[in-house]
């Protein structure tokens, strides 16, 4: 029992370690003091500044982030689902190579993908901007979507497709009416992962961005680098934290309810 106690103490300290910076950040977003070393009284002025017209650029960057994450998610869901179906159905040298191409980006440091895409865009003379960011994001999201859908396909009973064919369904009809609805939870999970990865990506985007196409993480980074409006970053980050927490909680709630409904119908 002794080391059980030791482990609990380590876990508690780790949780404090994980939440300390976040807690200080949230506290500082309400702090009058500009440098946040000590408490100088409660204020909402940093939130006010965030929504003032002088910070319109932040919101424009946020809009660009949403556009890129949205389009990249859709594209990587399509590519990832077709890839997973191909990997599941076929075997052979081509699919081994295909799997290697899907798997390697997962274990490559991000900076390598960033620099290699930049070199290629430079070599063929494509100017960097929203399009190159979109291409880069799709490239690193495909692997994650494929892996998530592939996991879902593992419990997939191929005989139901054959049954659909036997009952006279065309390949397209069978795909849209049988395969797709069964894979949908996997695709949605992969898409959510792709969306969060895309909206949060810094390193790859940093390499392939062009003038006037900074996404939100790049905008925050340049604000940090130039030490401009640090307290505004605090308030922006706090809002982002609240937003993500609500989103994660909501998705948990939905999936829990669905699970409960499923187990209820089974009873």
């Amino acid at each position, binding site marked *: 029992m*002794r*080391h*059980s106690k030791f*482990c*609990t103490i*380590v876990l508690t300290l*780790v*949780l404090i*370690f*994980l939440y*300390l*910076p*976040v807690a*200080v*950040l949230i506290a500082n977003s309400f702090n009058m003091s500009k440098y*946040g070393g*000590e408490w100088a009284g409660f204020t909402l002025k940093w939130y006010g500044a965030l929504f003032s017209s002088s910070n319109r650029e932040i919101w424009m960057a946020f809009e660009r982030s949403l556009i890129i994450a949205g389009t990249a998610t859709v594209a990587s869901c*399509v*590519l*990832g689902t*077709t*890839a997973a179906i*191909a990997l599941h*159905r*076929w075997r052979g040298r081509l*699919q081994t190579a*295909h799997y290697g*191409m*899907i798997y390697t*980006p997962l*274990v*490559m*440091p*991000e*900076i*390598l*993908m960033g*620099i*290699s*895409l930049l*070199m*290629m865009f430079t*070599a063929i003379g494509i100017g960097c901007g929203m399009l190159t960011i979109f291409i880069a994001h799709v*490239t690193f999201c*495909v692997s994650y979507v*494929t892996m998530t859908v592939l996991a879902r396909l593992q419990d997939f009973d191929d005989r139901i497709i054959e049954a659909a064919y036997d009952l006279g369904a065309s390949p397209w009809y069978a795909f849209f009416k049988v395969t797709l609805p069964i894979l949908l939870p996997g695709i949605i999970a992969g898409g959510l992962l792709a969306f969060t990865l895309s909206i*949060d990506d*810094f*390193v790859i985007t940093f390499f392939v961005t062009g003038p006037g196409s900074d996404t939100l*993480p790049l905008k*925050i*980074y340049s604000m*940090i680098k130039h030490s401009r409006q*640090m307290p505004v*970053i*605090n308030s922006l*980050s706090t809002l*982002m934290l609240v937003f993500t*927490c609500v989103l*994660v909680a909501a998705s948990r709630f939905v999936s829990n309810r669905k699970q409960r409904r499923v187990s209820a119908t089974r009873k």
Partner: protein
Amino acid sequence: MLTTIPSFVWLLLFFVIPTLIVFGIAFHAPSADGGIAPGFTMETWRSISNPNYPAIVWRTIWISAVTTLICVLLSLPCAYAIARMTVKWRAVIAGLIMLPFWTSFIVRVFAWRTLLSPEGFLQRFLVAIGIASEDTILNYNSGAILVVSVYSFLPFAIMPIYTAAEKFDFSLLEAARDLGARSFFAFRKIFLPGVKRGVISAILMVFIPAIGSYVIPDLVGGQDSELIGNKIYQRTFPDRNLPHASALATITGFSVLVPLACVAWWMKRQDEREEKRLAAATERKLRGGAA
């Protein structure tokens, strides 16, 4: 077969070919206008071996290795503690550990930068309890990089070890103790081998992003704690020396691929051994049955 085409073509165009281009550019000379000069040369590789670069490569590998070690050492007791909780608590704590992962990475590094700054909370706290003095500098050095790296990658180490620990049969530990094994001995000889696979994926999940780290050394590191990631950026943008950047990227790629290949080889060997042992045991049983 048609379903192979979209992803295959996309990744061939935007992953395989660019990677090969980077490798190729490392064998060219930079041109005066910041592009790439034609003609094959080993000049880039010769200038890379000057004393400045190996020091940076070495520092990157060293910091990544220490980060990985600390993450694994902290994750083992955490995974153990979570796996021994009730199912409901497990979900809560695992959720709390993963929650920071869903928030902006750049914001978390920024939070540390504020925390470690001379006017920051941590400095005041350490001075107050007498560990540090007023002029101790917490930010902008290798120590700061280490702390923030551990902070950023720790969830990726805890989760795989916890997943392995969840499947671990804890009655084995009680049995060992009943047989007189000391707590730590039982932990090392029974729990650790039981979660071995989790530990290996934890090592990879931390070491790989640590090697390619750019944001952390850039925001909390200093002049004399540059890592490969900073150098690649510097050579790509301010200096516009693409061959140098390519050579450094190639080195980074290999420092990830070599450990990865070792792990894959080791896992395969373990699997084969396990299979042989199982086959031998089955054979013995069959023979015993026949006799």
